[in-house]
């Protein structure tokens, strides 16, 4: 009979949310196991070379990879945390068993609590020739450059002026790649304007109300046709421009990676403000499946700073529900909740606040 490993808290995903959850739960005394699909933890943080926003509590001013290293050290130095890299969760069953594929083996775990911190995946858009070599997701470009040290090409068209589009454009410029333009279908820039200004003053145009109509090229991308959109998001005839580029980079948003939540029978709801289908959860991040928590982008796409705080909150709540940290847990929960409200208090956080309100709203259409 295959052996089933027992653990108190299983965390699925070793990115900013998962690592913060692991450190928080272990700090209170719970035994934690982290599954990480990649060969190392840190998630997207390890590819972020820019300084983070937020406050000291979320390591503001430090660069993403530095924060990643810090979180990794925090987990590694805690004997209560075990990390399995190259391990992907496959299913969460009715009897509480979680299966995974780890280093070529089929594994079974019986956790008392589960924190799903799987993050998000990149969205794609449909346009003619969107499968030409040279068309990349922004995450792929970051991996190529910041993990493997390879630039994607010479001249790039970036699609999407959210934070990812802006940040990845900046990283390419830093790597000596020419960014020909950043286009954005929405009438305004979605990312932080300080990122946009930094790129703009280096000479890269940001064209809002613009979209790609097609890519072209023989064997790989040789160019792109873009056009302007009117107030109804319809192409304006005659506004087409032909940009000679060898790379088209897509940064058109993220979708929460919620397959496991769906499969585990958590009640789900589509909330555009949170970027897709997300599990219903209470303010302590517990889903409708008791003992299953979510944290980070999987519970609604946001910034890494809030993902870390959500992770900490979920970790504390999971450990607390197992009887750990009875003296300090309520205060830690309150602190994390206060930090989250603080991060989301401004206009930039309004979308998330509205999304969460919609999500928690009783009586809405759930699927």
């Amino acid at each position, binding site marked *: 009979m*295959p052996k089933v490993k027992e653990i108190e808290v299983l965390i699925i995903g070793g990115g900013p949310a998962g690592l913060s959850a692991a450190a928080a739960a272990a700090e209170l005394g719970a035994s934690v196991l982290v599954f990480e699909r990649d060969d190392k933890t840190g998630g997207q943080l390890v590819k972020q070379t820019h300084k983070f926003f937020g406050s000291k509590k979320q390591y503001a001013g430090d660069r993403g990879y530095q924060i990643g290293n810090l979180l990794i050290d925090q987990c590694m130095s805690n004997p209560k945390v075990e990390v399995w890299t190259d391990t992907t969760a496959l299913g969460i069953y009715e009897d509480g068993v979680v299966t995974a594929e780890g280093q070529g083996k089929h594994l079974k775990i019986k956790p008392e609590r589960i924190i799903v911190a799987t993050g998000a995946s990149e969205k794609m858009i449909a346009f003619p020739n969107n499968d030409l070599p040279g068309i990349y997701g922004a995450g792929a470009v970051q991996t190529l450059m910041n993990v493997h040290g390879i630039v994607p090409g010479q001249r790039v068209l970036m699609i999407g002026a959210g934070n990812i589009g802006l940040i990845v454009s900046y990283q390419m410029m830093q790597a000596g790649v020419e960014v020909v333009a950043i286009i954005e279908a929405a009438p305004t820039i979605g990312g932080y304007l300080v990122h946009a200004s930094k790129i703009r003053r280096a000479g890269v145009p940001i064209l809002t109300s613009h979209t790609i109509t097609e890519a072209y090229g023989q064997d790989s991308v040789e160019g792109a046709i873009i056009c302007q959109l009117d107030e109804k998001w319809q192409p304006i005839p005659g506004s087409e421009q032909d940009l000679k580029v060898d790379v088209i980079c897509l940064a058109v948003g993220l979708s929460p990676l919620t397959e496991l939540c769906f499969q585990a029978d958590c009640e789900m709801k589509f909330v555009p403000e949170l970027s897709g289908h997300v599990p219903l959860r209470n303010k302590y991040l517990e889903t409708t499946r008791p003992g299953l928590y979510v944290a980070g982008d999987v519970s609604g796409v946001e910034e890494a700073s809030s993902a870390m705080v959500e992770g900490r909150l979920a970790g504390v709540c999971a450990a607390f529900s197992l009887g750990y940290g009875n003296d300090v847990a309520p205060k830690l929960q309150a602190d994390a909740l206060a930090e989250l409200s603080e991060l989301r208090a401004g206009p930039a956080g309004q979308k998330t606040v509205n999304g969460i309100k919609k999500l928690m709203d009783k009586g809405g259409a759930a699927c």
Partner: protein
Amino acid sequence: MQTKETIVCRCEDITLDEIKSLISQGYRTIDEIKRVIRAGMGPCQGRTCRMLIAQELAKVCGIPVGEVLMPTFRAPVKPVKLGTFAGGE
């Protein structure tokens, strides 16, 4: 490049035209389309195409994309080699 194709499902190489044609034939859910043409059955298990197909269905049915019925999510949520299951612990 012979024809301009718009790919919706990268794993299974399925185009927007193919999806539209299925919808015009009366297929109305992501699951139906998946069974007929394998969209969403490749290595990424629908992470790329699922919402693109949902958008097309929403347009045709005149409903918000959030109301499009999602496919059934089953374990394993990613493709696993049979050998892994067979030799698995």
